[in-house]
């Protein structure tokens, strides 16, 4: 019975929906996390009677046809790249991006990864690294005797050294943009990598046209809105229930059929 198949596509779609919402809620406090959303599409239609088919020699046509749908599918789980709130941490190695762009991270195997999570620290060698110890490109070393470190909005890293009045420039953090940020592949650990659909990375100085600026001492919080997620969860759960009602109804119809003529 087709109804059963249709309702099961509906239940599977809602299950995916709940999984995506659960992941959003689980990452509510993950630095730089971007919320995701499941997108649905209707499946193919079976044409039983074609609208517009001729019904007489004089050219009258059927005003409507019969098209039976076959359910729903998850077309995509897209990522919503809106800005998260900035929260003050007071840690000089916490950097937040205000606006578009990603930090460029060099992975231990030499490949590139990108992140919005700016909770950086120093490695034993004095380099600025992520919380996993991966180098933040281009690899800026902070001298061990530096008194304090400043990162300005344009991404320039400066240190004040003992006995010097002028700060010493250590390097420049660049941001990277993509034609389609939603097409980046999430790798876990807040990292993304480039794909064919994201387009190729374009580096630029923070604050130049199209690039965000850098805020030292701040972290970008997740852009998950708990109220919206919980509302979506309720909707998804009810939709799941309704599809299961359809399964029950289809089952009832089949039971009735099998009981016909059975006495």
């Amino acid at each position: 019975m087709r109804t059963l198949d249709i309702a099961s596509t509906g239940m599977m779609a809602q299950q995916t929906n709940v999984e995506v919402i659960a992941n959003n809620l689980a990452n509510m406090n993950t630095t730089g996390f971007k919320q995701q959303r499941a997108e649905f599409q209707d499946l193919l239609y079976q044409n039983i009677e074609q609208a517009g088919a001729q019904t007489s020699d004089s050219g009258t046509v059927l005003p409507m046809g019969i098209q039976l749908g076959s359910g729903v599918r998850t077309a995509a789980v897209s990522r919503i790249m809106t800005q998260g709130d900035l929260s003050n941490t007071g840690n000089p190695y916490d950097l937040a991006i205000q606006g578009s762009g990603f930090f460029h991270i060099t992975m231990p195997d030499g490949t590139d990864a990108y992140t919005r999570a700016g909770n950086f620290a120093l490695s034993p060698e004095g380099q600025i690294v992520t919380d996993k110890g991966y180098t933040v490109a281009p690899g800026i070393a902070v001298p061990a005797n530096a008194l304090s470190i400043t990162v300005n909005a344009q991404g320039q890293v400066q240190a004040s050294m003992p006995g010097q009045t002028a700060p010493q420039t250590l390097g420049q953090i660049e941001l990277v943009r993509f034609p389609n940020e939603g097409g980046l592949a999430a790798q876990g650990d807040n990292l993304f990598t480039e794909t064919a659909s994201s387009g190729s990375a374009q580096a630029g100085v923070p604050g130049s046209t199209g690039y965000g600026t850098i805020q030292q001492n701040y972290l970008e919080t997740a852009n998950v809105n708990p109220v919206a997620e919980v509302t979506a969860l309720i909707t998804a759960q009810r939709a799941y229930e309704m599809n299961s009602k359809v399964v029950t109804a289809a089952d009832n119809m089949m039971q009735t059929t099998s009981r016909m003529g059975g006495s």
Partner: protein
Amino acid sequence: MDNTLLISLSQQLASYRSMDVIANNIANINTPAFKRESMKFEEYIQQSQPAEGETGPQQISFVQDKGTLRDLTQGALTHTGATFDLAISGKGYFTIQTPNGDTRYTRNGHFTLDGNGQVVTEDGGVLQADGGAVTVTNDDGDIHIAQDGTITGARGQLGKVKLVDFTNDAALKKEGASLYSTDQQPNAVETPVMAQGSLEESNVQPVVEISHMLDVLRAYQTTASLTQSQEDLMRNAIDKLGGAAN
């Protein structure tokens, strides 16, 4: 075979198709811009020969499914905040060029950029503006899409989203993936209204669908019991008449 059984059968087959349509509506409760459908039935009258002892011809009516009627009312608009989510308010369809080069129409305004910066659907179909595809580059910065569909970036105007309408939009053929196809000539919508950062929801109303579903289910069960009574009647007749012969 007996007419009662055939009439019941016509109703039961129609119920099955009705149920399929309702199941499809409920399955697509979260599909953006999905339009609910309902089955239309028609009486099919057959003249039968007068039985013995009757004077005029008898009429029996079967039920047959005539068509699926699409409810084109507007779905509610929900705010998503995504830059390239567009909801049409009022009439109109977006024009999409599929990767195979076919022209399709949709009201599902969930668009993104592809790797080349073109505005596309989830399946890579290209959204058509007045001058064809719209390409967004990194230099455009934040994109603003006005109510009439004008796309503006930091470099200025990039294009204007084309909204079209049809003389008979109930005759558009569903192609799945929220797309429609038609042979009709599209007419440009005079005053297009769209909302950036929103999506049109499915216009399926759970209450309506569930009550229709119960309706169909009960009708099906009633007919089934009618079939059962008819069968009992026949069995009885055979028993009685068979008994009389012995």
